[in-house]
């Protein structure tokens, strides 16, 4: 555990500097329009920062295998949670095409305002089919 490695100031200062630089970088990069790359860059920077904090400030670099496994495990489960949930949403359009369901703009326009409406009329039969990418 951490007690086994000799404490030293240097890594803390270096990591701190790196974190500050990366924060500035993420703001600066966001100023430019890079399309989808904006998100990717922002996330790469955030993940890098988080990794630095975990490895050095939280001493995981010098910790037991069990601790390291714990960190990896929690990230993995986070991926399960988000990834598998998105597995549904990313394939909804394909699914609705097969089922002939109009793939509607989710949410908007439906719901509460349908108020006292009596019975709705089917949207045109072609709606769904007209929705491929």
């Amino acid at each position, binding site marked *: 555990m951490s007690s086994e490695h000799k404490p030293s100031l240097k890594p803390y200062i270096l990591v701190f500097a790196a974190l500050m630089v990366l924060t500035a970088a993420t703001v600066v990069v*966001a100023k430019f329009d890079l399309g989808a790359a904006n998100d990717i860059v922002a996330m790469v920077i*955030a993940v890098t920062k*988080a990794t630095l904090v975990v490895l050095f400030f*939280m001493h995981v670099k010098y910790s037991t295998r069990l601790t390291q496994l714990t960190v990896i495990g*929690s990230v993995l489960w986070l991926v399960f949670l*988000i990834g598998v949930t*998105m597995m549904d949403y990313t394939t909804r359009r394909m699914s609705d095409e097969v089922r002939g369901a109009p793939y509607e703009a989710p949410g*908007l326009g439906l719901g509460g305002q349908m108020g006292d409406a009596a019975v709705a009329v089917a949207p045109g039969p072609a709606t769904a089919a007209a929705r491929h990418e």
Partner: protein
Amino acid sequence: MSNPALGAAGGAAGTAAAGHAVAHHPDLQHHFDTLEQQKDSSSLGMWMFLVTEVLFFGGLFATYVLYRLRFPGVFAEASHHLNVPMGAINTGVLICSSLTMALAIYAAQVNRKKAIVGWLLATIVLGATFLVVKAFEYKEKFTHHLVPGPNFDPSQFTPDHARPAEMFFSLYFVMTGIHALHMVIGIGLLAWLVVQSNKGRFDSTYYNPLEMTGLYWHFVDIVWIFLFPLLYLLGYHAR
């Protein structure tokens, strides 16, 4: 497995000799054999707690990811109403506080008891600064009618963006609110540590509570490291 070992015992073993060497440390709890075992246990316990924290925030991030991908344009527009300088400053403040926290532990490791108190106080001040800035931001949102609910003013958005924008602000408040709550708890823990270290309880043989609180504090920092770009910097270039 076939090894019917006394000494080869796994995990908790800790030979009797080792047990005695430090057995009388005042901070050793009765049900542990050694201080080492106690420290390993609390460290593992803290890590397990952080795992639950990761997934706790995970639920929020999952929600964010879905709606962000569903309404990228709206989220970009709505994020224009957040204050990037304040967010960026707060990010810096939190990183500084992470450094001071790490330095407090370092001070304990090298037996500089005075410095522990100083670094802890610095951490508290930085944490409080973060919360104050956050409070100003919240206030701004209130006055601008950006708080979801009946007082939300949709007219500030492109008409068809108003409702998903309300969703964005719902997420904004839930995510930053829960994060701020964690900060408050962290500051409470730090205050308790200040009292303890003022009594000189921590040194290089025993600084477990410092280390545990440090893990928690850094974790809260990490959450913010993600919240900042995800909430504030969307479509920053288009402002």
